[in-house]
């Protein structure tokens, strides 16, 4: 069974900390995505990557960066966490446009 694994289910961090959210997929997918999900706003795209070492900004990249050193791993970095980054973060991967996304279970991040 194909899998997208996010390293943490729940995370609590302090304002100003540097935060790393990890995502690993075992499907050999080239395309990987980071979304955040907030009530009333739905899922919003932060960053995505079509290949190793490639990254592109999504709709809300401010305050975030990403790293894709290996095909299977896509990391989201909060350079200096702020309370408005408290959210559910979802990682997804896709082979191509014919099958949509496979999502990870999500990381619920609270910044205090």
């Amino acid at each position, binding site marked *: 069974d194909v899998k*997208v694994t996010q390293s943490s289910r729940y995370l609590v961090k302090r304002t100003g900390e540097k935060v790393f959210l990890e995502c690993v997929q075992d499907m050999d997918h080239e*395309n990987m*995505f980071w*979304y955040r999900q907030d009530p*009333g*706003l*739905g*899922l*919003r*795209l932060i960053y*995505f990557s079509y290949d190793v070492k490639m990254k592109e900004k*999504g709709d809300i990249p401010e305050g975030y960066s990403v790293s894709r050193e290996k095909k299977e791993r896509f990391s989201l970095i909060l350079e200096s966490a702020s309370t408005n980054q408290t959210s559910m973060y*979802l990682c997804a991967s*896709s082979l*191509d*446009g*014919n*099958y*949509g*996304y*496979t*999502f*990870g*279970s*999500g990381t619920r991040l609270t910044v205090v």
Partner: protein
Amino acid sequence: EDKVVQSPLSLVVHEGDTVTLNCSYEVTNFRSLLWYKQEKKAPTFLFMLTSSGIEKKSGRLSSILDKKELSSILNITATQTGDSAIYLCAVERKSGTYKYIFGTGTRLKVLA
């Protein structure tokens, strides 16, 4: 501006009822529309609808794409408590990019 709007925002029904969830979109160069079910964890894929596949059915769930009206409906017949979830609609915003724009979701609660 690309957007996806789902209605209703939330819905409470009793077991055995039939529900219809709506998704309308305004997206450049439409390629596909996806429906996902999200319980406590990762959204799980339900259907993909394209110009060449405008109607899908799986058990008690079915979905239709109306390209003229730029909308889709998701029908669930004989609802069960296990159908309680958030149902997400997503549209690929620009052909070939695999980037989806999501609606805010419809929260369905099925009472026993």
